[in-house]
Structures are given as C-alpha cells and as structure tokens.
C-alpha cells in the first residue's frame, strides 16, 4: 500500500511562523528590564540590548523565511533544481558561520569587555569597603568601625544570637566592628567593594537593580564591586538555592550621600 488519496496540503501552516516570529520579537521588545541604578549596569543593559537586537532580527528573519517556504512549497507543485552542488551547499554554510562568529564575538569582546573591566578590574583607590556574609537565611553586614580595619573572626566563636560572625574579642580591630542583620548602607556615586563570605552553604549576593550578582562560597572570600548611582533603598536577595528559606533571604541596601552615611555609621554601636 502506498499513501492513499491526495497528499495533505496546508500552506496556511506557514502563517503560524509569521505570527510566532512577530509575536515573540514584539514580546522581547517590551521594556522588561527594570531601571538600572549602578554605573556598570548600563554596560550590562547595553550588552543585553545588543543581543536582543541582533538575535531578535535573526529570529524574525528565520521565522519569516520558514513561513514563506511553507506557504510557497506547501501547495504541492513539482519543483525543479532542488539539489545544489556540494560546493554551493558548502559555500552557503559560510554565511551563518561568519554571521554568528561576528555577532557573538562582537558581543563578548567589543560590547562586554569594557564592562568586564568595570566589574572585575582593579577597584577604585577610594572604594568604600564592607563585608557581607551569607548564612541560612540572612545577610550579615560588617563595617570596620572607626579604625577602618575588619577585625579577626573565628568560626568556633560563631553564635547566632551572641556573636553571629564569631568576632575575636582579643583582637582590638574586631572590638569596634559594626555588625548588622540584612541592612547594607552604601555611599552614592562612589565605588563600593563588598567582600563576600559564607558561614554554611553557597549563597549568592544579588541586587538586581545594580545588575550585580556574586556567589558567596564557604571557605573563600569573593569580591564584588559596583558604583550605586542613585540614593534610595534597593532590595538585596539570594540567587543560589541555599535551603528551605532561600526565598526569604532578604536584605535592603540603602544608598545615601557620604555625609548621611558617615552620620549613620557614627550612630551604630560596635557589636562587642
């Protein structure tokens, strides 16, 4: 038996891909990105917009061509000359190779590399330093206090309520350290460099409106640097599954002027 009856034809199927291409690209074109509020964040948004523009165009073109082919060749007319020479087929492959290498490596090397320098390069000389420590399920913030030095900590001295970071009393540098739960205060317009640790599992320090994200690994000290641009409060969240309370590992970042920050810091009591 061979196939009975006329072959099923539905060239209108091609319209599906016209609609799909247009709707998806239109959907991505809606301004989903929230307003950015850090210096390097603009660079990240530029990279994202560059990729949206280039890949969106290619996806739309691909869908339109796919739809067009189905409309044209779905009618069942015999087609001559379907097979091109091996050489021509090979030459055609060069088009997507060059196109994608150009688009993707321009993204990584031209658009993203300067931002890489801002995010991972040498921090500014006058960067504001603070420590943030992740633990299940909160963020502990430590300022060095008047001496400007973070004191010694010892994990054996950690006690959730009495000494959450395990500050060592015998170290004078530790005696003026300020420890806060879930509240991070930073200066506006000046680079902050946050050193990140974890007491238990992996967490990830993220302030989405700053476009910043860095895991806190137990056993390591990681760093993340950024320059807040606007005063106000911003949400700090955890971006690495850290246990049943992952979703409520919330903190606030208050960005204020240098004067307000200095005033606020002077009002904080040392932990010990």
């Amino acid at each position, binding site marked *: 038996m061979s196939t009975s009856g006329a072959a099923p034809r539905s060239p209108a199927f091609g319209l599906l891909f016209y609609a799909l291409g247009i709707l998806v690209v239109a959907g991505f074109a809606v301004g*989903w990105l929230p307003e950015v509020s850090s210096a390097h964040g603009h660079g990240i948004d530029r990279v994202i917009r560059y990729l949206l523009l280039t890949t969106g165009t*290619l996806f739309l073109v691909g869908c339109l061509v796919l739809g067009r082919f189905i409309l044209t060749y779905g009618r069942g007319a015999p087609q001559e000359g379907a097979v091109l020479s091996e050489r021509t087929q090979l030459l055609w492959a060069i088009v*997507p190779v060059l196109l994608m290498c150009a688009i993707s490596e321009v993204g990584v090397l031209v658009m993203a590399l300067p931002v890489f320098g801002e995010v991972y390069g040498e921090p500014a000389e006058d960067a504001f330093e603070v420590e943030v420590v992740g633990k*299940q399920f909160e963020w502990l913030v430590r300022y060095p206090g008047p001496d400007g030095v973070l004191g010694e900590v010892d994990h054996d001295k*950690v006690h959730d309520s009495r000494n959450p970071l395990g500050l060592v009393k015998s170290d004078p540098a530790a005696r003026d350290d300020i420890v806060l739960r879930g509240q991070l205060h930073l200066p506006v317009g000046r680079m902050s460099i946050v050193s990140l640790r974890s007491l238990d599992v*992996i967490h990830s320090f993220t302030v989405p409106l700053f476009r910043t994200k860095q*895991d806190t*690994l137990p056993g390591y000290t990681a760093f993340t640097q950024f320059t807040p641009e606007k005063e106000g409060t911003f949400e700090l969240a955890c971006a690495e599954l850290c246990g049943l309370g992952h979703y409520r590992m919330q903190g606030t970042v208050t960005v204020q002027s240098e004067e307000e920050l200095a005033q606020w810091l002077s009002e904080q009591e040392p932990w010990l």
Partner: protein
Amino acid sequence: MAVAQEHAPQTFISKYVFSTDHKVIGLQYILTALFMGIVGSALAVLIRAQITWPEKALVTPENYISLVTMHGTIMVFFVVSLALVSGFGNFLIPLMLGARDMAYPFLNMLSYWTVVPACLLVLASFLVEGGAAAAGWTAYPPLSALPEAVPGSGLGQTLWLLAMALFIASFTMGGLNYIATILNCRARGMTLMRMPLTVWTYFMSAILGVLSFPPLTAAAIMLLLDRHGGTSFFLPEGLVFGNETLPHQGGTPLLFQHLFWFLGHPEVYVLVLPGIGITFDLLATFARRPIFGYRTSVWSLVVVGFLSMIVWGHHMYVTGMNPYVGEYFSIATVLITAPFAVLGLNLVASLWRSRIRMEVPMYWALGTIAVIGLGGFGGLFLATSISDIYFHESFFVVGHFHLMIGVVTVLSALGGTYYWFPKMFGRKMSVGLAKLHFWTTYLPVVAVFALMHFQGLSGLLRRYYDHTIYEFQEAGIGLALPITILVFVVTGSQLVFIYNFFVSMRRGEVASANPWNGTTLEWTAPSPAPHGNWPGALPVVDRHPYDYDPAAPAEADFKPQGTVA
C-alpha cells in the same frame, strides 16, 4: 534463510521482559520514560501552583525545593534521556543502519534493567524521612552534602546519588553499545557519510555521553564519601550549623561544580542533538527533497560535539571561579552558535524548492525548528559572561534550558512517535487526535517558555517558594498566572496523546511497510519489524539517505536507500 526468526524468543518473559531485541528494549525505555514523565509533569504542576498562589501555601518550603529538585532530575535523566536517547536510539539505530540488532544485545538488556532500579530509587526517595533530595538537580555541596543544611539532604539525597550512579552505569553501557553498533554493524554500502542524520546525532550523543559521564560518577562517589565517610572533598573548614562548627576541612565546593558541569554541559547536547537529527529525518520525508547541506550538517554536529566538551564553565561565571577563566569560557561558548547556525540554516533551507506533504509528524518537525531558533539565540545571553551576571539563576535560564533540553527534545520525540509508530506497532495513530494534540501542545508550550524569558528579563529569580515578598519581582510574577494556565493546558493535552498512543496500538489504521514513502532503511523492513528486523537477507545500501525528487510524479518521487535482495 530466516536465521533470525529461528532465534526469536518464545516465552512472554524472554520476549517482553528480559528481551535482548533492540526494538523491545527501545519501547521499554519509551514506556518507562512515559511513566516517569507523568510523575515529572505532576511535580511541575505542583511547582506552578505554588509559584502562582503562594498565599495558599500548598506545599511547605522544604517540600517545594524537593519538588524543584526532583522535577529537574526526573525530566533530564529519567524522561528525556530515557525516551529520546535510550528509547528512540535503541529502536532506530539498527533499523536505520540495516543491522539485525545492537552490537551487544545482552549488554543492551542489562543497561535497561540497570535503569529500572534507578527509577525505583528516585521514586522511593519521596517516601523517606526528610523527603526527596532538595539541593537542586545540580546537587551543589555543601547543601547536598550535609543533612544539617536541608531536610532533603538526609536519606533522600543518598538515594538520589545511588540512583544517579545506576543511571550513569546504564547510560554508559548504552553509549558504548551505540558506538560499537554504528561503527561495526552497518549494512553493506552504508558508509558513515551515508548514515541518516538521526544516526549521526546518536553517534555524537553516545560519544559525548561516554566521555562526559565518568567525572560525574567520580563526583557522586566523592559526595557520598563526604556524606557518609567523613571525607572533605567538597567541604571547606569553618562550616557552621546551629552554632556548631563541623569538623570538615580542606575541600572546595567549586570542585564539585566543575565535575558536575563537565558532564552537565555535554549532557545538554547528548539530549538535544538526537532531537535535531530526528527533525532532519522527518523534514526530508515530508519535504520530499534531500536535506540541504548533509555534509555541512555532519561536520557541524562534530564541531558542536567537540566544543560542547570545553565550555562547561559558562554555568559558573558568578560562582567565584576566576573571572578571566570565565572570559575564556565565554569566548569559546559563543562559538557554538556558528555550527548551530549552520544546522539551523540547513533545516530551513531543506524546505527550499520542496514539495511539502503536511502530515502530522511534519507539524512537529517544523515546530521544532522555530524552537531551536528561539532556544539557541537565548543561549547567547547566558553565554556572554557579562549579561549572565544579570540572568544567572533567573527565569531567563529556566526558559532557555527548557526550550532546548525540554521542548526541542520532547517535540521531536513526539513527532518521532507519530512517524515511527507504524514501524513499532504496524498501525497508524489517529490523525484527528494528533492534530488536537499538536495545537494544544505547541502554542502553549512555546508561550510558556517565551514568557519565562520575559520574567527573567524583568528580574524574576528561580527556585523561590514565594516571590511576592520582593518589590523587584512584582513585574515578573505578574506573568505567573497565564504561564500556569498554559502549563495546565499542555499537561492536559498529553492525556490526548497517551490515549491516542494506547488505543491506536490496538485499533489504529493498519499501516504498510512504508506508509510515508520514506527512503531510509527502516522502511524496507516489515511493519512491525520482526525479530532480526528483515525476514530474509539484510538490505544493501547503494545511495545517500534522502533520495527524494520533488520534480518527479508524486508517487514515484523517492528511491529507498537500500534494497532487500
């Protein structure tokens, strides 16, 4: 004469249970995957319900992360791997190559019966104290190493690790069998460059699987030792739980991530390449013309396979790995778009000057092409390390990987089921139900994962029990309800498929040996194919796999790849 039939198994047990016939084993895998798929889908529905209505607290927070963990584990390893790679691979490779069976039929049986206890262990882990594993499908220590860290890291995580070890053993046996069969059991005249692209993709998939799974086995054993043997491979000094410092020292959690992703990334291609191969084969049959760029497709598959082994670090840009190393991974990862775009071009161009027959399997093939595009381009946002800072652990990632390893794979497996069903059971599936299934699956599923990309752009983070306590997640969570409704539609739609599958098996329209006028060798065997695949001599191959001519009269527009003497 008819040697193969003389060896055909006679008893029910040897024919359907402990069978060494690749077709029976293939179907065993597919049915096992179908069952596990129902479990995995049920978990997905629960996850969606919790995300959408957090105020109802349908599950507890610890159960929620178990759901997320087990949904990922089950779907990746026990549904997509089993159905598409092990199931269709077993069924198709010998038939498409003109072989009687796999190179090692007993090993094949062993590999299936090794994965069955793995499935049972996974299912059993829901019943133990503390619940199923809850450290994510990636099982990052310390979370996965310490029962103190999360309730699921008790016995549930141990069962998870044992199940993975069994799965890997099974998958490695399967992969070795694929490689041996493809290299040694091809019919006369079936050169490597005459193999159907489906077989090429299984070849690459098997090579990648065999090369990349062993490090995960090592990681699983090290993690088991950290959990139960007092070692500290992944655990550094100074871990504090409940005011107590643990005695571990000297390990690093990053080591596990490297070992995991050294497998994890190639695994993506292990899954997605066969989906692309099947799409090519369906496309050729229903476009009635040869695949555009067969050779460039083969070489692209080889290049994709190679590159996939050296880019695992793109999952780790913000983990604390040296960012300069991340930059290398970024540069290398985005190169994959080049061979992938060649595959995309060849898929689309295979419709140029074609004469499309819009049968049901073609719906899925065409639909898959657009998803490969959408999922593939989304990958660039994550591969570029700088934009990944924003997208890492967001719903953008969830949308992206679901499109690639969930939708491309499942759509092509469904298309493949409609296409090869006559070869499996000698009958066709109902066309009306199949169309209903397509439209109620395709449109919602693409919408679901496109919307998740938008959620990710707006900043929505994944694996959250409740997003509503954050202001920045408001915009994203606004899309949760439409997504959930669409998920319910897709899930319900699969019931239509399951009904069609089992009813058509017994009552479908009887199919001929070659109901679609296909060219590849499986269509020269009877439907359903008997033990040994060809009753008489094996076919002899004399041409490339897609010899269709859209200029010829409609009923004589194809030449089978081989002839049976």
